[in-house]
């Protein structure tokens, strides 16, 4: 499988990355290089093989459904690019 310039623009859009037009050709080359290289996985017989989920099997831990943290509004906002009156300030998202 190989990707075209349009594929790269579509992937960039899906990934929410602004890619300048002059980077597209470079990315097409690099992505195809990597995708061709990983094609070799098709040689492996994976018939009937389970996908790996965890390297070391142990039962998924359960914890008590209790509040263990909170009341730290100012800490949560401390690294916000913009905040006001205890809220995050974000661009308008409803048209």
């Amino acid at each position, binding site marked *: *499988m190989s*990707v075209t310039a349009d*594929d*790269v623009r579509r*992937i*960039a*859009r*899906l*990934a*929410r*990355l*602004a*890619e*300048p037009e002059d980077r597209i050709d470079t*990315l097409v080359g*690099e*992505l195809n*290089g*990597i*995708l061709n*290289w*990983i*094609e*070799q*996985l*098709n*040689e*492996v017989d*994976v018939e009937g*093989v*389970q*996908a*790996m*989920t*965890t*390297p*070391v099997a*142990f039962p*998924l*831990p359960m*914890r008590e459904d209790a509040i263990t943290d909170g009341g*730290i509004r100012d*800490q*949560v906002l*401390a*690294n*916000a*690019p*913009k905040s006001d009156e205890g809220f*995050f300030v*974000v*661009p*308008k*998202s409803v048209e």
Partner: protein
Amino acid sequence: MSDLLKLSLDEVSAKLKGKDVSATELAREAFAACQAAQPALNAFTAFDEEKTLAMAKAADERLAKGEGGLLEGVPLAIKDLFAVEGVDTSASSNILKGFKPTYESTVTSKLWDAGAVFVAKTSMDEFAMGSSNETANTGPVVNPWKAQGSDESLTPGGSSGGSASAVAADLCFGATGTDTGGSIRQPASFTGTVGVKGTYGRTSRWGVVAFASSLDHPGPFAKTVKDSALLLQAMSGHDPKDSTSLPNDVPDFAAAVGQSVKGLKIGVPKEYRVDGMPAEIDEVWQTGIDWLKAAGCEIVDISLPHTKYALPAYYIVAPAEASSNLARYDGMRYGNRVEGKDLHDTYEQTRGAGFGHEVQRRIMIGTYVLSAGYYDAYYLRAQKVRTRILQDFHDAFDKVDAILTPSAPSAAFGLGTKSDDPIAMYLNDVFTVTANLAGVPAMSVPAGLDKAGLPLGLQVITRALDEETMFKVGAALEDSAGFGHKAAKWW
């Protein structure tokens, strides 16, 4: 610089406990040494002298009372991927530049609980994506080692290059790293230091900036195998805040150091003899085999047949998980924002400006392999190949107690010599990445120098939860190697 900083962690601990030196004195020296080396090595991203001295003072108070933990008063450097409260934590990325966590990672909390003293944050490849520390937003870290008769700046490896350089240059007594495909072991091999990752889940990932969650292993850099065992011990343990954190008790890793390896079966996998590998790598490997044989081990030829598929599988799984993990950098709640013409444009501009090229490339690959219609062909297949790789290790560990391989396919290379070809760079991890995919413990131990006088490491891999055998074998190699080499000081 006095000779204090040249001591091992274990040696300096004894001096601290014996009150031959105070934690404050030691912290001042380490801090000054880091600052003095910074213009030449560029290993650090942040300092906080007040914090360093306050921690050292608290350590002195505990030491005065005859109290103190495993690492009481020992200055350590911390990879910029770990959240340290109040200190810039940016994963060497512009998107997080200036981020000051209001919380502490579990691993660093454990180190401070054991009495360690923070000395500096260390540079790394951006979001831990790289093998040469050249993708850091603050520029490449320089390896303290140079080839004989050459002044060329060499890479310390990556992604934990700053930590590796700092320990190799005797600027601190140990450092944290993270290993997702080899990011502790390859830099350890390039800098003549010991680098370890435990079993997946031994060390908590909470408060560590996520790269590829199923592959990320926090671990230590150290000057000796014993030091690395002490550090891993302090870093390990169950953490309810990380659902993949192992519930198992942490053994006394350091107690394994120095135990006899007589009768242990050591596997030598034929698939690790790769085409085009320098003869010197083969030689150091053979030397390691001979050392272990002389120490009473039985050498067994083994096969890990799916080794060649490990890197391609990694370059599906890691970017896929990274593209999901890095979706959080949207410029809304933290990190830097670039205002666009609407919300969508703001996201794209923020991420386009905030991430470097390597990170963008990996997000793109990850997005592609997870996109509609491709999931089965790429991600699902890669996770099945991963099961095959794990099965290879299970089969091998039916026959042997530990596996011995080279740590990296070359010695440290010149900065800028591989940065144009992503795949050539990815091949650096050919020997290390299998242990990440399988989640088994692995370490790199300095074994010798190549003809140019650069360090080469050997890797020991053991079964899941058997770090003790790894430390035992690692210490036997260290003993036989009598490495003792240091980079000649030029910085």
